[in-house]
């Protein structure tokens, strides 16, 4: 079974601060996705990273896929209250019908 560990699991910061969330595994994934989930809603895809070492930016969010495709990070610059939510990383394996493995999630609270 492929496992994805996320850290930290909980994060409470002031508006304007920077933060980084990590997603680690001992397994190699063909790609890794980051989702954000707000209360009472389903997860919504933020980004997919495919190539080892790949960096993608989405406004104030920067996503990186590790060189060995076993880990990823999400960095938020100058956090805003609208960034509050549950951030989930999801690894996809290769071959056949792809099964997605989700991490435990990082619950982020941005305080005004």
């Amino acid at each position, binding site marked *: 079974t492929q496992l994805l560990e996320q850290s930290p699991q909980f994060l409470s910061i002031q508006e304007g601060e920077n933060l980084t969330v990590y997603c680690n595994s001992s397994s190699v994934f063909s790609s890794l996705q980051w989702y954000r989930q707000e209360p009472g809603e*389903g997860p919504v895809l933020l980004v997919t990273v495919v190539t080892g070492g790949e960096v993608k930016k989405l406004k104030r969010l920067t996503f990186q896929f590790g060189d060995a495709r076993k880990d990823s990070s999400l960095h938020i610059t100058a956090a805003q209250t609208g960034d509050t939510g549950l951030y989930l990383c999801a690894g996809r394996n290769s071959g056949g019908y792809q099964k997605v493995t989700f991490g435990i999630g990082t619950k982020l609270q941005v305080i005004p």
Partner: protein
Amino acid sequence: DTAVSQTPKYLVTQMGNDKSIKCEQNLGHDTMYWYKQDSKKFLKIMFSYNNKELIINETVPNRFSPKSPDKAHLNLHINSLELGDSAVYFCASSQVGGNTEAFFGQGTRLTVV
């Protein structure tokens, strides 16, 4: 237009009852999924169907029976509900293969009392 819609959004029922959750997607996707999210927010895949055919069954108790009448619908029937079944159940859909995006429904919060 809601892309992936589930009903009901909330379900409270007694132990031992049988209940169903319905899911429909209007995205034209071939693959649909059921996920369970527990109280610690851990999202775990239960089933995956591709074009009405069961592809993934993640050692879910056979009290859970998914049914896909067509590729736009994937329903989940649960027999003899137990307290431990309380969770939020998410339906999702995606295109086949590649690194495609999964679109999730709003979830069904099931509470077994």
